[in-house]
């Protein structure tokens, strides 16, 4: 249990050495170290190659990497051939990346952040922000623990375990929740910010927002919101200085 907890703790730093060659690979090796300690005693000849394999190229969503970590470590103890374990890791990259991105980056994160924005604009203040951090991290910790445990319990059949789990359904629901939460947050934020200004000023800001959205649709991937904003701020400053 202590080794599992040590691995779980290290999974929080899985992107510590993120790079373009092995991506999460080094972090996976770092998290695998406590779990592979027993292998050094039970199968000393296999341990070095298992450690080397654990740090090979790997990419997935960081919060779900525990599934692949657990499955590959379990396979090492089961004596699965090394080439099979490498293939298992490679096969898990895409599904864990896609599911994790849907569940967290495009789902739970924007949903919870937008909900926090909405609540703050309604007057909840810093307590809402503290609640967001606590609740999100409680969920994330539970997911990390579930992922590691499921991977260790399933070994090479982790793919089936993922398919039958709550993950695919939750990923879909999280996306819908994100859409709703952002939809609620946008008008609340607009009123929160624009209420103190004149009608003309507020209308100008909303017109600029509409222009930015149209620019984003027309320019596609060429559009970058920060650059658009900095250009607009520079243009406004120059205009104001010119008419002064």
């Amino acid at each position: 249990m202590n080794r599992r907890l040590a691995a779980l703790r290290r999974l929080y730093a899985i992107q510590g050495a993120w790079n373009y060659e092995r991506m999460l690979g080094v972090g996976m090796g770092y998290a695998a170290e406590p779990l592979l300690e027993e292998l050094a005693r039970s199968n000393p000849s296999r341990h070095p190659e298992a450690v080397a394999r654990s740090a090979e190229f790997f990419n997935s969503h960081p919060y779900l990497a525990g599934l692949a970590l657990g499955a590959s470590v379990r396979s090492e103890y089961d004596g699965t051939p090394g080439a099979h374990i490498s293939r298992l890791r490679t096969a898990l990259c895409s599904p864990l990346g896609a599911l994790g991105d849907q569940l967290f980056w495009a789902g739970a994160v924007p949903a919870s952040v937008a909900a926090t924005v909405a609540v703050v604009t309604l007057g909840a203040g810093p307590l809402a922000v503290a609640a967001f951090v606590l609740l999100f991290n409680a969920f994330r910790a539970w997911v990390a623990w579930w992922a590691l445990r499921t991977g260790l319990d399933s070994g090479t059949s982790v793919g089936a375990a993922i398919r039958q789990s709550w993950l695919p359904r939750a990923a879909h629901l999280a996306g819908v929740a994100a859409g709703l939460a952002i939809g609620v947050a946008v008008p609340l934020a607009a009123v929160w910010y624009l209420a103190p200004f004149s009608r003309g000023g507020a209308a100008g800001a909303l017109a600029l927002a509409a222009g930015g959205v149209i620019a984003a649709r027309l320019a596609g991937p060429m559009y970058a919101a920060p650059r658009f904003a900095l250009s607009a701020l520079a243009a406004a400053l120059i205009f104001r200085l010119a008419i002064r």
Partner: protein
Amino acid sequence: MSLEPATWLLLLAWGILVGVDLVSVPQAMLARPIVVGTVAGAILGDVEAGLRVGVLLELFALDVLPVGASWYPDYGPATVGAVAYASVLPAWEQSLGVACAIGLTVGLLGGASLQWVRHRVVRDLNMRTNDLAAGRSAAIRGLQYRSIGRDAVRSAGLTLIALGLAEAAARWLALDPGTSHTLTLVAIGCGLAAVIGGALRSAGRGARMRWFVAGAAGTALLLGIA
């Protein structure tokens, strides 16, 4: 803007923590602008300014989808500097535009600095390929700790730049109230454009889009009635 040494050190420490949190460890959402802004505001004794700046930069951050090896801004240390500037002026209506400009500039710089760290990790990795192939755990740990250390240095540098920009703007940028209000309105408009643009892009045409439209229309209706 004259900060007490203790306040300055706390802001620097907070900037390092949130900079490292974005990618390296622990990815606990501390780097979200709304969180960074609130805590930075509390450190500076102006939570209102922290929330106003944090929520505005959060609208930009909601446009970001940090999938795979994509390039994205680092708004954590940037928000620290933006809040430091906003806390100087008496009203957020006057400071939000310039604070947003500081946040976005340093955020973009932060995105570029992440690439620098990643390339340095590759160089470090290539020097230890034999150790990794031999399964030496110490080599893995060393790579991990050095990389996190580099990220901490990067975050410290970004926070210092953000605080330096805030200091420079507070000291030398003397704007009349009309210009300050105009910049604030522009920043708000662009923030709304960022969050709506991002939401439309990721919503596609399915259920997510329907719920986004329903949420926006329903809330707008309720606000209109209220």
